């Protein structure tokens, strides 16, 4: 068996790849559903209903998709430049913490001034957490995957420390949660009796902005060039290290922003479980979207739907909610294979 690169990568195959991957994933995971003793068809129907069967279900899915779109974008820009940022989880928490910190800094300024400050602080915190690993990568050739992964643990412990200490909410009855942000900083709701907030609009706008930057600006071109072939980019005169560092700032800032929006739009405060792996899911989303910023929106809604749908399904029948994480993880693996099959032909002989 050998692989032969296709002379031309057809657009149809590329678009079909994620759908094929998801279909294969659902078939494989149906074996796991059957193992739990539940009827497969019924379980998937409940999952679909939980994700999109009612206005409420759709609003929950969109609420869950909001941070996922942004972490998906954070991973997308980084992976485009072959900067393997696996630290979006930690950067999200850093952003959330910074947002609450600045929001409660007691600045006697109008909300119109504090709001951008809060957002900027969150983005700076996320960027700061990634610039270290990026510098280590460009200066000392230290693999950024391991450093960003390890920083996730450090970031989470730091959050835990702040929630035990200076940022602890004294009214939380010993529950580890931070003080809340002032009410005027909360993002407005998009619909009555739902949790969808205007953060969704911000996320959608960000996807368009990242797409424009990627497609139509010199910086976007530089990122792609460095990602495609760093040596060739260097020969062409591109400042490769500077491009990697700028990419890191952008990627980290996006992940930090996801944290701030989650705080301002949903909870109002930071807890240690505010992100059930949004940073890691961002990786799956970016891959499902084949690193296309607009595709990220669709992929994020799919992942959010699986997570929300599985929650509601597991309340109705005895399929553990962890099936959602299995589906998401398996779709990443299936997507890897699918995108390869779109680019290569398998020859047997």
């Amino acid at each position: 068996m050998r692989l032969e690169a296709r002379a031309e990568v057809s657009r149809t195959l590329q678009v079909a790849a994620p759908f094929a991957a998801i279909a294969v994933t659902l078939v494989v995971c149906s074996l796991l559903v059957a193992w739990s003793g539940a009827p497969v068809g019924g379980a998937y129907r409940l999952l679909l209903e939980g994700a999109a069967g009612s206005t409420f279900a759709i609003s929950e899915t969109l609420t869950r998709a909001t941070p996922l779109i942004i972490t998906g974008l954070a991973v997308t820009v980084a992976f485009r430049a072959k900067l393997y940022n696996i630290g979006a989880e930690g950067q999200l928490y850093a952003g959330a913490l910074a947002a609450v910190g600045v929001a409660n800094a007691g600045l006697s300024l109008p909300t119109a001034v504090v709001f951008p400050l809060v957002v900027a602080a969150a983005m700076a915190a996320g960027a700061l957490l990634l610039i270290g690993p990026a510098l280590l990568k460009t200066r000392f050739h230290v693999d950024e995957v391991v450093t960003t992964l390890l920083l996730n643990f450090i970031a989470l412990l730091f959050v835990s420390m702040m929630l035990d200490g200076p940022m602890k909410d004294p009214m939380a009855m010993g529950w580890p949660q931070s003080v809340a942000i002032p009410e005027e900083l909360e993002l407005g709701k998009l619909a009555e009796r739902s949790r969808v907030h205007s953060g969704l609009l911000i996320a959608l706008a960000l996807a368009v902005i990242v797409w424009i930057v990627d497609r139509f600006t010199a910086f976007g071109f530089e990122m792609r060039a460095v990602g495609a072939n760093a040596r060739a980019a260097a020969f062409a005169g591109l400042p490769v290290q500077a491009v990697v560092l700028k990419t890191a700032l952008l990627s980290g800032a996006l992940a930090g922003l996801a944290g701030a929006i989650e705080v301002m739009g949903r909870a109002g405060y930071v807890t240690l479980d505010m992100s059930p792996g949004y940073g890691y899911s961002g990786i799956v989303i970016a891959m499902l979207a084949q690193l296309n910023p607009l595709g990220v929106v669709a992929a994020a809604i799919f992942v959010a739907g699986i997570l929300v749908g599985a929650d509601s399904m597991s309340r109705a029948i005895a399929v553990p909610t962890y099936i959602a994480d299995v589906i998401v993880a398996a779709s990443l693996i299936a997507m890897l294979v699918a995108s390869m099959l779109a680019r290569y032909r398998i020859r047997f002989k």
Partner: protein
Amino acid sequence: MSGDILDVVAGIPFWVAVLRIATPLIFGTLGVLLCERAGVLNLGIEGIMVVGAFTGWFAVYQGATLWSGVGVAAIAGAALGLLHAVLTVPLGLSQHVSGLGVTLFGTSLAAYAYRVLLPRVTTPPTIEPFAPMTSLGVPLLSTQTPLTLLALALVPLLAYALNRTPAGLAVRMVGENPGAAEGQGIDVIAVRMWTVVAGSALMGVAGAFLTLSAFNAFFFNMVNGRGWICVALVVFASWRPGKALAGALLFAAFDALQLRLQQTSGAKLPYQIYLMLPYALSILALVVMARRAAYPQALMKPYRKGER
């Protein structure tokens, strides 16, 4: 403060703890080392350790002997390793992303299986773990379980196999110069795949140590980044088994030290600071060693026959 440290380090209990903390790291680091010497980065380790911890524990919980539990964990690890090997070796997919996929898949699969198999439990059921080898009569070792002895024995064994046997030479060749290996009649794809499978089996055992020796039950999050630390330790060890042992012991010594300091120095610092130390230390080790790191030359480079 420095007096405190001396007191701690001089005590036997400290070294008992060091060996116990080091054992899963030794298994894991040797596993990663083996994969990387053949040119394949295996970030699946974190998930493989979770699966090893779960399957090994569950087998024993169902009545299997402890050693069969270890075997089950090794087989489960090897199975996930085979998945990673297929994706990265013949298919040549991104080793970074495939490894992360295996980790996410293994971790979530273990959690799902735990809930399906034990739907009603609230507190994790316990098993009777490996007992210390008191009859051994060797001062420090007799406080440890047989798995620690196995880990220590594996180090020279693996070093010998890698450096002194034809199979080891083949592994090193496909990791350094697969083209030349092919020229010698070595099947690069096969050697890489089976090396990844073998390394992943060791990672499974690393996980099993946690549930069958260090603790007596399975908890979610019990691996807690140990896999990633192993990946860092391999760089620290310059891909040599002996240095990997030294690195794991050194790391475990720091970890044991922070645990003791947490207890003895009272609440001078938030406990989270101590818990951060192992991760920070791993990053530091990477930075210090990365400059003179002698990476296997073909690490992370997929091999396709006839392509250069």
